[in-house]
């Protein structure tokens, strides 16, 4: 495996959640300049994996490397500072805070005022729908707009790797497509993507590299396009 090309590499990771083992020896890597996806059913351990990488959960065993640094067991504040941000499952916005404050909270760790302002403009260019509503509370937005805000908030940290936990959940198909396009644009603009999805179709279409997570273990890996053709994946995750 070409280590220098990996922005994130996870090696033999074990994480328990509430005393129950949720991940049992997960290894995977995210390459620079790529969209990597992890698909898996409910309860497969996807969210646990995201939380462990972000620093919300401490692994029992294993190693997480980010840009060559060992980040295993670091706090979320430390992982965010290193350039790794997570858009959590269910968006988790600050509902009564304004859209502007939600975005600014994403830039909490940063002190470079001018650059923050510039990133704010970039984010609003990605999501023009937010522009006219900056002083409205986040809970006044529709589901799709809230997901955009959640992605925008994460981008405000100026991440090198953006992790998205089920961004398409509960959204109408046209909105899912929009979100997919945005993820692609962000990737093209130089932010690496780790996308976790139950909606395997969108995820595999986007992904350069894909992993299938089942019961806390990686059971299949390959190029996104390859997995779309895989019979097991088609049956289990694409409903074909």
């Amino acid at each position: 495996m070409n280590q220098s090309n990996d922005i994130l590499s996870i090696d033999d990771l074990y994480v328990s959640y509430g005393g129950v083992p949720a991940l049992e020896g997960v290894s995977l890597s995210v390459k620079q300049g790529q969209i990597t996806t992890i698909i898996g059913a409910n309860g497969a351990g996807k969210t646990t994996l995201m939380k462990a990488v972000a620093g919300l959960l401490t692994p029992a065993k294993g190693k997480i490397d980010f840009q060559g640094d060992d980040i295993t067991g670091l706090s979320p504040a430390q992982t965010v500072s290193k350039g790794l941000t997570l858009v959590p499952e269910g968006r988790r916005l600050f509902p009564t805070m304004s859209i502007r404050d939600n975005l600014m909270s994403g830039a909490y760790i940063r002190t470079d005022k001018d650059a923050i302002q510039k990133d704010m403009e970039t984010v609003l260019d990605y999501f023009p729908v937010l522009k006219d509503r900056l002083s409205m509370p986040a809970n006044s937005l529709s589901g799709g707009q809230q997901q955009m805000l959640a992605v925008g908030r994460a981008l405000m940290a100026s991440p090198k790797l953006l992790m998205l936990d089920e961004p398409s959940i509960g959204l109408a198909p046209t909105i899912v497509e929009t979100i997919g396009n945005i993820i692609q644009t962000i990737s093209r603009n130089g932010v690496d993507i780790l996308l976790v999805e139950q909606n395997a179709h969108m995820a595999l279409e986007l992904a350069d590299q894909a992993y299938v997570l089942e019961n806390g273990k990686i059971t299949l890996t390959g190029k996104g396009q390859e997995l779309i053709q895989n019979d097991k994946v088609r049956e289990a995750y694409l409903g074909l």
Partner: protein
Amino acid sequence: MELQVQLLMNTLQIGSVYVLFALGLTLIFGVMKIVNFAHGTFFTAAALIVSSVMIWGVGTMGLSIWFSYLLAFFLALVVVCLIGFVVYIFGFQYFLKDLNGSFILSIGLLLLLNGTFLILYGGVPRSIPDVIPGNVSFLGASLTLQRLVLMIVASVITLGLYILVHRTKLGLSLRAVAEDQEAAMLQGIPFRRVALYGFLIGATLAACAGALMATVTPVTTVIGDDFLVKAFIIIIIGGLGSVLGAILGGLLIALIESFGGYYFDPSTATLAMFVLVVVLLIVRPQGILGHAEK
């Protein structure tokens, strides 16, 4: 008319202190998701420190009343902040978001501190000399200058807190933690440090309220307990965790107390507050400006 103005002035004066005190309680609840039953002891500690420093400064040292009061006020804030820091480090930080644990801890702390105050100060109420003597008339109503200044100072502190919460980065982190702690952590906000700041700000607000009240009312070792009950009513009415709610609730309770106490009698006014709470809990349990939990 004169009478109504007078009652309104009383409302604003007592209400401004209620607001300060309730703001601290609601802030601590918002950030730490605990109810601090020992919040009144911060108030009491500040009032007791003000009274003893004033007696020492004016009586023993012969300092001017003004200077003694400023010194006392400052010392009260420092000491209460220290007490807050100690009880946070050795206690509350282990019970963040734990209603049962923090309930037991804060009740224990309340008993411990009340007992300590009684040993140190005895049970005799003490008054301090007027810091600012004189009266002012306003639309026929008369108010001691001292109460007017108290009202202004309390309002300025309230405004300062509002600006802190809504216009600064610290405020952003306090609000973010209050709304969704885990999401706040994912933005890199250090939850535990922010909780400590929230707790200390809350304790300081209670100390400000106590230090101000000591100028207009006799100080006893249980002076804060009465305020605690009112503060609970206030934040239930205004909405738990809401700054504007605490301001609104504080003024409303003072209004009921002041007008109800005059037109009926004080116990009827107290009864009215509790009736209001019961009615509100039935029709709008999240409070006037509170947000229902998802």
